[in-house]
């Protein structure tokens, strides 16, 4: 076992017992990045020197201090749509290729306060729009389990880096499944918190009413630790909730006896890969064997969630991305005779195809004469989806589904078929639409590729889905499997 193979909890123990130093850990994972990232390509930028510097400073401190904050000295990597002061934040886009942020996102401030070590920024679908990370303007990230497959998206770099031990944890963002789906494709844990649980200040906005930042980790306990750090109300984010942060790590070991688990039948349609279905049902049975009460249920409006999402998200995105106009920062087209031409050429040259596609869609559905028919209607469908879930949660403590209809597909397979790409988000979108927390945890393999189990919970009840995921994880040994990163 190399140091970089361990989980956060394992490294915490070793640091506490002075078995290793933070510099040891950091050196180990930087070496790992050097070796395997030429194949995985998860990182846009590696901040190795700064990381070693920070590691040294913490080592000096550790010897004098007795109490360590939970994430002190733990090397992490951040999806490149979260602002870090003094470092480039590109969002996987040419239009921000050289943009250096002048401030820290709130989650970064919190992680810095705990003295976690920054390893670098991770590749993603441009502006978080995509399900395969193939929409990055710079390069494609590969799935560590099979380098010819996609890692999922939009937080593909985050999932791939954790899966290949190139980071102990990563932060991703999830608007329609962008944490959970790549986590399931890469065989790691990915958590989307309740909307409002984690501050969005410093997260470059895609769809404001759907975005959330969340952890991608090697284990459920690691996810609980990171969530405890990044969660909490933020005066800089009016949509962050004034609800106390649970002791998620402590609550993990409660056990799931009597836990009421619903399995919505709409999440097992014909499109679902039969092997995936099989693996997921086995996981359900496993929970049952541990004392959970598992039962089929129904969320009738599930099929409409996807279409409503692809109206609401592009609409908000068309507005959020309008600030990229070449005036104050970012890319500006070199030659333009007048203002309008400057705007047009800057955005034409700076944005990729999928981003332009969604901006056009979003502008259309908000435009005069169409607002009622599309945007307003989609908001109403959203309410119906939310009501379905509220009703289910009156009876069940959590809901169990596959994270994705398929396992990882081939690079290049769906890139020319946007609609088929959109279907990858079928099972993850409803949680964003309703604002509820959801976690993906590895539950087996199909054709050698990881399958993810999704658990959805009540608003601000991350504790329940974490403890259910933990119980399942500890009763199995999927988390022990590592990819070999062969060509």
């Amino acid at each position, binding site marked *: 076992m190399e140091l970089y193979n361990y989980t956060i909890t394992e490294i915490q123990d070793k640091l506490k017992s002075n078995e290793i130093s933070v510099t040891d850990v950091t050196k180990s994972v930087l070496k790992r990045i050097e070796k395997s990232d030429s194949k995985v390509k998860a990182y846009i930028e590696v901040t190795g020197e700064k990381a070693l510097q920070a590691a040294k400073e913490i080592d000096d401190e550790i010897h004098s201090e007795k109490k360590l904050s939970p994430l002190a000295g733990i090397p992490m990597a951040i999806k490149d749509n979260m602002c870090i002061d003094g470092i480039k934040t590109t969002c996987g886009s040419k239009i921000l290729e050289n943009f250096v942020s002048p401030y820290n996102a709130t989650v970064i401030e919190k992680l810095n306060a705990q003295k976690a070590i920054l390893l670098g920024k991770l590749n993603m679908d441009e502006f978080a729009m995509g399900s395969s990370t193939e929409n990055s303007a710079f390069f494609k990230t590969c799935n560590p389990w099979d380098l010819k497959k996609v890692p999922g998206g939009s937080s593909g770099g985050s999932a791939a880096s954790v899966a290949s031990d190139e980071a102990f944890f990563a932060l991703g963002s999830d608007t329609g499944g962008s944490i959970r789906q790549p986590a399931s494709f890469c065989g790691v844990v990915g958590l989307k918190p309740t909307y409002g649980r984690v501050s969005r200040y410093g997260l470059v906005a895609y769809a404001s*009413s759907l975005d959330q930042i969340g952890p991608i980790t090697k284990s459920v306990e690691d996810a609980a630790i990171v969530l405890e750090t990044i969660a909490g109300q933020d005066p800089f984010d009016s949509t962050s909730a004034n609800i106390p942060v649970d002791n998620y790590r402590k609550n993990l070991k409660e056990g799931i006896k009597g836990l009421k688990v619903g399995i919505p039948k709409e999440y097992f349609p014909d499109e679902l890969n039969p092997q995936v279905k099989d693996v997921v049902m086995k996981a359900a049975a496993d929970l049952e064997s541990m004392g959970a009460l598992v039962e089929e249920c129904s969320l009738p409006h599930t099929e409409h969630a996807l279409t409503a999402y692809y109206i609401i998200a592009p609409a908000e995105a068309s507005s959020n991305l*309008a600030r990229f106009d070449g005036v*104050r920062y970012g890319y500006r087209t070199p030659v333009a005779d007048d203002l309008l031409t400057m705007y047009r050429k800057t955005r034409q040259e700076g944005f990729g195809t999928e981003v332009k596609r969604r901006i056009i869609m979003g502008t259309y559905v908000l435009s005069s004469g169409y607002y009622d028919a599309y945007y307003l209607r989609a908001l109403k469908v959203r309410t119906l989806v939310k009501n379905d879930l509220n009703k289910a949660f009156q009876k069940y403590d959590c809901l169990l589904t596959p994270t994705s209809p398929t396992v990882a597909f081939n690079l290049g397979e769906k890139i020319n078929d946007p609609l088929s790409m959109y279907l990858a988000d079928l099972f993850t979108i409803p949680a964003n639409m309703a604002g509820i927390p959801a976690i993906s945890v590895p539950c087996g393999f199909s054709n050698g590729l990881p399958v993810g189990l999704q658990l959805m919970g009540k608003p601000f009840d991350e504790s329940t889905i974490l403890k259910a995921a933990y119980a399942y994880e500890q009763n199995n040994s999927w988390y022990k499997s590592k990819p070999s990163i062969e060509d």
Partner: protein
Amino acid sequence: MYETVIGLEVHVELKTKSKIFCGCSTEFGAKANTQVCPVCLGMPGVLPVLNKKVVEYAVLAGVSLNCKIAGYSKLDRKNYFYPDLPKAYQISQYDLPLCQDGYLEIETENTVKRIGITRIHIEEDASKLTHEGDTISQSETTLVDFNRGGVPLIEIVSEPDLRSPEEAVEYLANLKAILQYIDISDCKMEEGSLRCDGNISIRLRGSEDYGTRSEIKNINSFKTLQKALEYEIERQKNLLNAGERIIQETRTWDDGRGITLPLRSKEEAHDYRYFPEPDLVSIKVDNKWLDRIKLSLPELPEAKRARFIETFGLPVYDAEVLTKDKGLAQYFEEGLKTYNNPKKLSNWIMADFLRLLNVEQMPVSKSLVKPEQMAELLNMIEKGIISGKIAKDVFENMFKTGKDPYEIVKEQGLGQISDENKLKEIIDKVIVNNPKSVEDYFAGKEKALGYMVGQIMKETKGQANPQLVNTILKSSLKIN
């Protein structure tokens, strides 16, 4: 034959300490781009946070203008591209504004008229552009100063109830007075904290339908408001009389040429794609908060005017002049505390004080003369210590130096001469030196008396008590 229909849209910058969605200062006149932060610069990843004071000030405005205050309202995004708009959307209010259905009263020739106020809503101000040429399309470079971006605004929209440029000016003046009274804005048109756009159309008298209107922008003073509206009325009349149609368009007032010019037509109008701002929660004004705000409402101009007329017995004209500006009204009431003659104080303020303030373009607050000092001066006139004429000179000195009147009078020896013996001496001298005048006086020429009074004043450097001079002169002449 034609009737004019005018509605005004007034934007008011609120004088909160910080901007509407971030903590940056709203101070006017700072060096360019020194009052900015990632939020008001629209950097990637930032979020707005609503300044509570902005809501309070807006509700205060609504209450003072007799509006209904919405218990529930929200903010919306107004999307368009322009370099003075960092996020490429303005956060404003679309369909659920904070205040609706109010009114403001103005005085027309013989009656009091109610001008409806459709709505008041909050929004953020755009930044300031400085073009090298006249417009952005005529410039090689344009500079952007983001200090103003994010300064809180309220937009006050009137019903099209105004019927003349004079009414429009009166409406704006009354609106400005009220907003200054409740102290939510400096309302300085020259600094841009009060801006006005006019919507104007004409129709045949007696018609119920509205004519096609044009929107006039770039009105930066009360004078240009009057001129621009007058010009528009003529322009529209001429078009209609020539059998042509009025185009619905936005026009800009060209002060240099005294005309309006088209800015953009309806066809080029933006589709703002309004939708509710997802980064902000809704605004709930409950009755408790509303009551607290209502309690904080100060006495408004109308009520003050009425009180000045009733309690102090001032004529309507005086009351109007004194209450037009809150600072002036306060000054007056302060002065009354130590000088108990409202009419005389009012006269002095309206004649001497306002004249000097106007010449120096000085607001009341900057005056070096404090109300107590003015009261002291007027008391000195009452007591006969100085004459009214000398007092005017003393006051000019006070205005320049801020010194106490007693000090000035002592320094310059300006005290009124009321010593009868001393006066008799001087008067007798003048009588002896002016035999011709004395003769004329007895011949019935009253002017001669005035001439001799003038000589006496000259001898005493104007300090002789005029009433005493008159009495003693007449009696001395009789004796002679």
